[in-house]
């Protein structure tokens, strides 16, 4: 048996690795941690940037694009998106009785150059005709002998002039004059000319629309650049971009303001019910069940009537009130459930044993632990509120004209969907993008804020 001798050396620590004691990673608070995980979620981050861009579009947009959303540019109604158009300046419109000195030539011809102001036609009287019917077509006259739009019936064989002012666009038209038989029915005999219409404006109109550059002396025959509408115009010539911006203000205001209000209320309500439990909980939650049962549309109309909104006034205030009054129960239920669960957790009991007061418990433990749920509810509530506004404006219960919201713009755009699709596509696109962005952000937030998903990275 050998004697073991211990020296002092043996009783020294084998090694002291300082590194083990050091917290290598920076300490992250709950929010920092959530942010880190949100940043890893590319979809959510992209949505966040999208929402920020939308907010910038809404708030800062009108400073950059200063066009008034209510100004009607009647010369450019339903114009598709594109660069600004040029127009030639001409003298103001003077009524015409057809007595211009006939320009040389025979048959159907122009009395003067065709402009968007008026197209003036002349022809020779036809023997035996009772009168004439003047047509305008977008296409050349083919085999079908379809002459296009009948513009006017002239029931006097000697009246051989016609002035067209109906919705003239800068393009080429085919004008036909068809003879009428004694019954006033068109016969086969016709003359057709192709007319190239030039876009014009008057000095007065150009000045009124602010198109004359400062210090410029414009004369008739000069060319002027018409108002620029990057996203086109609507059915009354109003600038789509400006209208989308002002519409965004309504849509996003409702979409963000109303949910914040009712979620705040729902949190307080649900927390009270969950924390006190027992009969308080019973009473409060049965009342919230009652509110859930109220039909939204009916209630919204009732509030509208009760709040004395006059016809022609905006229905936004009653809409927000109705949303707030009816929207909170879902949040209240969620928060109550969370609070009931947290109330029984060990750390809450420990805290209570250590003498924590109610207020401390709620603020330190309950609310932060339900924050994830609350934020997620909020991001999902936003798109639903935007949709509600769009729907109500669509059925004519939202904003009052001339105000616009994305929903009311869709409502107007759908009527001309086939001819001028841009009037529907842009507002619909904005609604879709906003709703999608908020939904994806909500998805990402749910993942980022859920404490149980920590450590899965």
């Amino acid at each position, binding site marked *: 048996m050998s004697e073991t001798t211990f020296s002092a050396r043996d009783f020294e620590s084998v090694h002291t690795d300082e590194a083990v004691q050091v917290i290598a990673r920076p300490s992250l608070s709950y929010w920092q941690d959530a942010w880190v995980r949100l940043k890893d979620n590319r979809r959510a981050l992209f949505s966040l940037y999208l929402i920020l861009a939308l907010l910038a579009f809404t708030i800062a947009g009108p400073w950059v694009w200063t066009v008034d959303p209510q100004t009607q540019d009647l010369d450019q109604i339903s114009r598709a998106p594109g660069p600004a158009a040029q127009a030639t300046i001409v003298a103001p419109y003077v009524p015409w009785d057809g007595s211009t000195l006939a320009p040389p030539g025979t048959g159907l011809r122009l009395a003067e150059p065709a402009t968007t102001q008026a197209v003036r036609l002349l022809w020779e009287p036809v023997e035996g005709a009772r009168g004439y019917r003047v047509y305008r077509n977008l296409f050349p006259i083919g085999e079908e002998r379809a002459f296009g739009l009948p513009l006017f019936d002239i029931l006097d064989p000697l009246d051989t002039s016609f002035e067209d002012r109906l919705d003239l666009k800068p393009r080429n038209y085919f004008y036909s004059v068809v003879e009428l038989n004694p019954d006033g029915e068109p016969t086969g005999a016709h003359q057709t000319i192709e007319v190239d219409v030039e876009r014009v404006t008057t000095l007065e109109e150009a000045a009124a629309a602010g198109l004359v550059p400062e210090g410029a002396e414009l004369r008739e025959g000069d060319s002027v650049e018409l108002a620029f509408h990057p996203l086109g115009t609507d059915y009354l010539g109003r600038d789509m971009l400006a209208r989308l911006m002002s519409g965004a203000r309504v849509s996003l205001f409702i979409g963000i303001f109303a949910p914040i209000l009712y979620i705040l209320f729902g949190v307080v309500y649900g927390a009270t019910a969950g924390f006190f439990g027992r009969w308080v909980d019973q009473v409060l939650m049965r009342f919230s069940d009652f509110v859930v049962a109220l039909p939204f549309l009916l209630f919204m109309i009732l509030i509208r009537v009760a709040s004395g909104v006059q016809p022609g006034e905006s229905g936004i205030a009653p809409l927000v009130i109705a949303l707030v009054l009816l929207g909170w129960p879902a949040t209240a239920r969620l928060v109550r459930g969370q609070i009931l669960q947290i109330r029984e957790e060990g750390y809450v009991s420990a805290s209570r044993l250590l003498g924590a007061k109610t207020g401390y418990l709620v603020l330190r433990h309950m609310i932060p632990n339900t924050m994830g749920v609350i934020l997620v509810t909020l991001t999902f509530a936003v798109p639903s509120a935007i949709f509600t506004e769009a729907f109500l404006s669509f059925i004519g219960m939202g904003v009052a004209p*001339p105000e616009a919201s994305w929903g009311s713009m869709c409502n107007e755009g759908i009527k001309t969907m086939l001819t001028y699709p841009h009037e529907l596509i842009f507002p619909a696109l904005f609604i879709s993008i906003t709703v999608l962005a908020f939904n994806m952000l909500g998805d990402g937030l749910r993942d980022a804020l859920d404490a149980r998903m920590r450590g899965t990275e």
Partner: protein
Amino acid sequence: MGMSTTQVATEESFSRSAGKQLAVYALAAVALLALLMWLLNLLASLTASAAGSSTAVDAANNTITIRLSEEPPQLDTTLLTDSVSGVVIAHVMEGLLRYDQHQRLVPGMAERWEINAEQAVFNLRDALWSDGEPVTAHDFVFAWRTALDPVNASEYAFILYPIRNAEAINRGELPLDALGARAEGDRTLVVDLERPVAFFDKLTAFSTYYPVRQDFYEATGGRYGADADQLLYNGPFTMESWVHGQSLDLRKNPRYWDRERIRLDRINVAYIVSDANAVLNLFKDGKISLASLTAENLAEAMEQRWHINRFMDGSVFFIEFNHRPDRLTRNRNLRKAMLLAQDPNELVYKVIKIPGYLPGESLFPVFLDGVRGKFREEYPAPEHRMDIARARQHLEKARVELGLDEFPPLVMLTGDNPVSNIQSEYFQAVFKKNLGLEIRIDRQIFKQRLDKMTKGQFDMVLAGWGPDYNDALTYGDLFASWNLNNRGRYANPEYDRLVGVAQGSLDAKVRMDAFDAMQRIIYEDAVLIVNYERGQAYVTDPRVKGIVRRAVGAEQDYTYAYIDMDG
């Protein structure tokens, strides 16, 4: 570290395979959806063909298919008010006189007639009801008494007022048998007139003047005109069936006195739709033989190389002001300012854009007859020029007269249809830009709008008026102080006097002078702002000829129509 890389790798491969799966599912879903659509389409076409022929033109059966914009509320001629019912009833019933394809008044149930200042005598022809009984003078007397009976509250009772005692009976002051209309035998109808009426012959073509047979009316127990078998027919067609909300089936009436004239055997009203795009699609698919066009689908109609027609339906549309004492619009200068600040040419040519609309110049539309020619050619409308400077002067005067610092918002009542939506927003911007006036738009459905008009809950209203008979008085008496359709309660003794002259005189020149004075008062006093005379652009199936569209009478008339397969 290595551990986590593999994890990432698996995650990546997982997401890749998940993506693949997702794509497969999406594809399958799309394919299924397409299949479902195809099946539904197949089913729909099966049921459609089962429901019977729904092609626009069926030459073998001499049948055409048409659509109506809405269903007739009912077809009791003593209560009829709307134009859709008017179209149907003009095909199945006939009055004493009627309009032909050239808008001339021709004999109907009456073979001969004589009208003087006190009396009208109609000699009826040998005509039969659809059940084989003869049409007698008693049927007319009964119909008119029924329409005037205060119990029935017919909205069009006033159109019978030229008959002696009619107005008193309608007010309940006289018994029904006091009416100045009597049957002398079965074939002679004698009508005593309240006052000389220059256009009584034209009135008898209106549906309220149509006959109703007493025994049949009473046998229906209050359901007269509610169904195909609750109505007796004396017109070119009879109604074979009426499926409410869906279809009406009109067949040629073998007992109609002028049956040789009728060339169609059947008119199948297979669709009751008002949506413009749906109507156009039906026409494109060859399901209906006539479709109206809107500004949006004109280009499409041209591209399809369709033969486009237009006609003026005789309706005049205007902004009617509220002249009640508590309204700002009672102030003439304010109205004048608004009148001068707008240009109907701009509205029609740039905003409405439908060929056939005429910029409004006068309450009296262009189709009305004057002394010899057309009224508007003999008496041109007051010349209107937009003049913003003058408009602003009037506005300033109005502001001072009313003692206002600035004008409160004015309420513009309007209907809920595409044209009036655009029109109201256009005027809102015009009055804002040119006068700085704030306009609030009150959009209401037709019934609600009428109710608000009657109660006077508006400053101005976008309204219109269609003719009941072919005489300027149908428009002129609209603003007489006693007329219930004068919703703005305009009251002007001079105007009333002129209406009295036009009602009571038989001298065309005197009457037309009165109408001219009326159109001048309307402009000078800015009683209303005339916007436009409505026109309609429409397309017809090239194989159907002879469709008549007109301002007075049934606006669609197929009694002269025939099928010509050569197109």
